[in-house]
């Protein structure tokens, strides 16, 4: 490559970079006008946020803790139940949704489309939708977490199933094994580690999502936070937020440990 060519490549690369930067700056300015946003507003916003966090929310009301233990446990139970049922259903469905193991391509496409719908509608919208028919409470929270879990897990499981070593499958097929024998003897043993890995990850997501679900009527800690803010009981709110923090971080630590231990 001549020096001139190299120089030209460098220049086009630099031009591209400048173009992208100008585009991003332009979009940001457009957005700032659209939302009547300004740097002083940002500065003031962070200031007000910090003041609210450290003055109005502090100190957390420890005496409110006993009342929050119930919702906190509900949050954990809902996430776990949704993960458990979700991973079983998604595990079964993903065998039909993966290109390598699906008995028919039409079934595969249909399942993928369904799981994409489950997954791409945010969990809070599922909750708002389901609250209208199932009423407030833990049932709605569990159901919406379950729907989103299935959506996510079918995709992740199917992708892992497509990555398995096809040599073993071929070998069993050549030996005259039936469809279910191939699944049981060649596919599942290879699939098990990712099954556990993704399920644990799903549990982490569910724990986060369950607080969101609670805000629109799905029970648990989110409900306590939302109602606390509406009633101006900020010290209770901060206690609940701290509980959310503890649960999320504890789940993360626990799942990491389990991952290391058994996989």
């Amino acid at each position, binding site marked *: 490559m001549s020096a001139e060519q190299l120089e030209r490549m460098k220049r086009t690369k630099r031009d591209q970079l400048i173009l992208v930067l100008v585009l991003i700056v332009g*979009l940001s300015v457009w957005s*700032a006008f659209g939302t009547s946003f300004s740097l002083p507003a940002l500065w003031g916003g*962070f200031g007000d946020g910090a003041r609210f966090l450290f003055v109005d929310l502090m100190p957390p009301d420890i005496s409110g803790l006993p009342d929050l233990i119930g919702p906190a446990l509900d949050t954990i139970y809902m996430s776990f*139940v949704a993960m458990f049922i979700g991973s079983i259903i998604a595990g079964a469905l993903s065998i039909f949704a993966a290109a390598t193991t699906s008995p028919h391509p039409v079934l595969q496409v249909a399942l993928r489309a369904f799981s994409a719908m489950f997954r791409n509608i945010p969990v809070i919208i599922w909750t708002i939708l389901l609250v209208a028919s199932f009423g407030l409470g833990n049932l709605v929270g569990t159901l919406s977490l379950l729907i989103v879990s299935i959506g996510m897990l079918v995709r992740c499981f199917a992708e892992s199933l497509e990555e398995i070593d096809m040599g073993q499958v071929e070998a069993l097929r050549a030996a005259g094994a039936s469809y279910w024998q191939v699944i049981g003897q060649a596919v599942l043993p290879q699939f098990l580690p990712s099954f556990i890995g993704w399920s644990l990850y799903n549990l982490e997501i569910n724990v986060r999502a369950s607080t969101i679900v609670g805000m629109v009527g799905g029970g648990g800690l989110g409900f306590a936070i*939302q109602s606390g803010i509406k009633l101006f009981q900020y010290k209770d709110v901060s206690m609940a937020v701290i509980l959310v*923090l503890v649960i999320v971080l504890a789940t993360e630590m626990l799942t990491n440990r389990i991952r290391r231990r058994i*996989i």
Partner: protein
Amino acid sequence: MANRLENAASLITLEAKLSETPKANRNHGLRWYALFAVVFFVFSLIQLNLDYARLLSGAEKFAKTVSLMFPPDASQWKHVLAAAVESIQVAILGTVLSIIISFFLAFLAADNTTPHKTVGWLVRSAASLLRAIPTLIWALIFIVAVGMGPLPGVLAITVGAAGSLVKVFAQSLEEVDEGVIEALRSTGASWLQIILQGVLPCALSALLAWCVMRFEGDLAESTILGAVGAGGIGFELSHAMRSYRFDQALFVGFVIFIMVFSVEIVSNRLKLRMRKRA
């Protein structure tokens, strides 16, 4: 879904570990964990005390609700599109601000570039605290602090996104080959020179990929922030739902789906192109 890549990476390390543990031992542990999972599942179900009768009657009502959704009502399209644009703007501002903030913090957080170990630890812990609180809760906090509208949405996204970007940026920086840093240091380069000449060029494409991913996640989040009053299209949706206009709600749902999905497609394209170049 925003953490897909992050998580794929953890799966890979996890599979690497798989080959290290003796198999018999693993199976033994697995059985106990499986047993515990089943027991805890049953226990959770009992504790939740779900009303199974409502499951059936609710399913019926749900089917009725869904039938009320058709045909979707697009008569409010002007409002809905304006709200959609606002959501996009909130997502852009939040992402850009969080990228700027985390870009600087990441150099303090990464093990190989941090000026001091304690600083790195502090920044990383602060980031994980920000990350652990869901964006919607941040939105609620900022709504109380600065009032309704797009501003609390921008602030909530900035804070939440900064929490996760600092982590992934720092990880990308830590993946930079130690030799590059070593070589620059041996020539007597200063900290700033090492970062500008050595670390940054190596990590740039990874950082860009994370930015694109982050925007994808932030857009999805900004569409729902309105449900708690932080402006944008989420408000239209929850408003339509609460006034039982399910046909309008479906239209809003369509718009949200198109927004999220088109960004996902564009970002997948970009990621493919970046991977080709790298």
